């Protein structure tokens, strides 16, 4: 089975939401700013519930925020 990783577009979506800050997003979804930073850097894969909350905060479908892609694609 090929190795996959959870990629996300949080940074891009924050930009398109009028340069929403990491702190603002963190407050919206109920986590710390450090968790948002860790997700943007690909150091943390959120729970399914948090993933849905983030999609809801951006008002987009979850597949626009997260993608389960092959690890080789991004390296």
């Amino acid at each position, binding site marked *: 089975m090929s190795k996959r990783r959870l990629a996300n577009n949080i940074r891009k979506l924050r930009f398109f939401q009028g340069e929403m800050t990491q702190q603002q997003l963190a407050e919206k979804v109920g986590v*710390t700013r450090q968790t948002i930073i860790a997700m943007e850097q690909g*150091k943390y894969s959120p729970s399914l519930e948090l993933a849905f909350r983030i999609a809801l905060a951006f008002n987009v479908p979850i597949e626009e925020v997260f993608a389960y892609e092959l690890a080789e694609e991004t390296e």
Partner: protein
Amino acid sequence: MSFQEKNITVSLVNFSLILGFYLIRLWQLTQQGNFNAGQVFRLWGIIIVAAVVVTITATILTHIVSAIIQAIKTQAEPVIEDLADERDKFIELKGTQVTYVVSSIGGFLAMLTFVLGQPPLVMFTLLIFFGVVAQIVGDAARLYFYRKGF
């Protein structure tokens, strides 16, 4: 660095100091020929009380110092970031798992010395040693997970 990371770093330093004190005191006891039940159990008591008191005091002080530094930096009312979200809880769980593994291996090794004919004092000495080491390794693992991700 988040509040949790600061707290873990302080805990890591504290338990390293406690371990250092424990090893120095043990070395002194063996040098003085006082390695007996009374002295060893007294040292046990000191280590356990020190661990509890230092942990509580350090957590309170970390809160206060963080708030002061934040207030100086931002020139505003400090906001204490002690909210633990799912990532913090997950890291805490993984760290506790590491602590338990090290503690279990240490407990087994300590009992093994007894089985192999060493006096019970050696077993008790090793038990508290591995208890403190397990806490240090657990804290180091937590810091690693915060820094490197998982």
